[in-house]
């Protein structure tokens, strides 16, 4: 059962990802209310050009995530090349150079697994185009924790291995062609926000009996 009051978006992409990310981000308005945290597989020695490219395609502010930085709503964060990006309980970032996971550093699985520490069931996870299976384990974990999973249709992906791996890994919530993902995400988040304001905000008790 999904808790529909989402609080963060995590996205994983690889081969063909820059175009796919641009498509998703360009559909979102400048007042998009949630943080978006992205792992795009890059060459280890590439500079921080990805944030600049994505910012030019988007109305949102895009930056490379810094160590210990507190995650802010409405921001887009990119994992730095050659570091894993992790999310702490207090919703700040940490970085790690532990070995590649699924041949990748940054790894989508590492971001997704640790996103649960900070955001629990309030996560929307998106898997876009890619040529390996990174992210499969992560979406499974997020789904088990009550998050929502969107995957690009393998047919619309430049490389279909990663969407296929995610679909095989768990019962994903939505499979969409690339051009519909941004719009769908916006609707999903808007309806979740409306629900939040339509009813007295229920604070789940820290201790259940």
């Amino acid at each position, binding site marked *: 059962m999904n808790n529909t009051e989402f609080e963060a978006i995590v996205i994983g992409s690889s081969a063909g990802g820059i175009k796919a990310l641009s498509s998703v981000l360009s559909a979102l308005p400048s007042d998009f209310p949630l943080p978006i945290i992205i792992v795009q597989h890059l060459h280890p020695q590439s500079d921080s050009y990805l944030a600049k490219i994505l910012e030019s395609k988007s109305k949102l502010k895009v930056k490379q995530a*810094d*160590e210990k930085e507190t995650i802010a709503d409405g921001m887009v964060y990119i994992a*730095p090349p050659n570091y894993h990006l*992790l999310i*702490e309980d207090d919703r700040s970032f940490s970085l790690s*150079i*532990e070995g590649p996971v699924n041949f990748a550093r940054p790894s989508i699985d590492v971001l997704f*697994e*640790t996103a649960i*520490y900070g955001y629990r069931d309030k996560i929307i996870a998106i898997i876009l185009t890619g040529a390996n299976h990174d992210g499969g384990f992560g979406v499974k974990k997020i789904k088990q924790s009550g998050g929502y999973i969107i995957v690009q249709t393998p047919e619309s992906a430049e490389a279909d291995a990663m969407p296929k791996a995610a679909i095989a890994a768990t019962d994903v919530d939505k499979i969409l062609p690339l051009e519909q993902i941004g719009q769908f995400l916006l609707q999903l988040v808007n309806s979740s926000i409306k629900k939040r304001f339509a009813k007295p905000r229920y604070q789940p008790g820290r201790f259940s009996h």
Partner: protein
Amino acid sequence: MDDIDTQNIELQLLLQAIYLKYGYDFRNYAKASIKRRVQHRLTKDGFESISAMQNKVLYEVSFFETLLLDLSINVTEMFRDPKFYLALRKVIIPHLKKYPFLKIWHAGCSSGEEVYSMAIILKEEGLYDRTQIYATDMNEIVLKQAKNGIFNISRLKQYTANYQKAGGQESFSDYYIAHYDHAVMSKSLKENILFSDHNLATDGVFGEMNLIMCRNVLIYFNRDLQNRVLGLFSDSLPNDGTLCLGSKESIRFSAFSNSFEDIVREEKIYRKINTDKLTK
């Protein structure tokens, strides 16, 4: 209280248990990375919970040693971030040449790849013979590897490329002897390196240094522990001493931001400054 809250309690208890039993203090490490690696160990060995694993950690030293390797990240390479080593050679080395004798501390040196990188630069710049390098790590297993200076030959191609990007102009293969699938670093690089056990979370200052290297270690610590370690470094450096951090690490938001100034900003190379002057 859900499962994640319960796991957080269990993790805290496990880290306390490890500290009390074995003296390794992970309590002030950034939690996400530790938690993820503990969870992977649980799944791999089929434990039901962190508490169930804790029992084995306390009673089986060999199992603790396995977990210790999981928890201490020992990924490194020679001339990691070649641009950093280029800056070291071009900007810092000329400055170090004015000292008659040099002391360098590599804190958290892991299996030693970056220590040998430094040794090579010092050799080429004519400084090695008047330098004492202290290379320390908390993990004795990796420290032993560092001391042996034996690396897998499959990595040497990348190290050679890194060396060249870092401004190296000699033949890199002169610095090691290939032996089957291993490369043994030249004895002459080891002469002035002292490898020893030192834990940044629990141990203190052990001498005054001209330069401290501590790259990609602070990222695993929480703010409190980062401040403790930066305090150790500040106490170990005289005014004008050099501190080198990893390229994603910064002193800017720490308790010691006023004790250092940038030398090469983008490579995180800092100079200790005279703070007495500032406060007067």
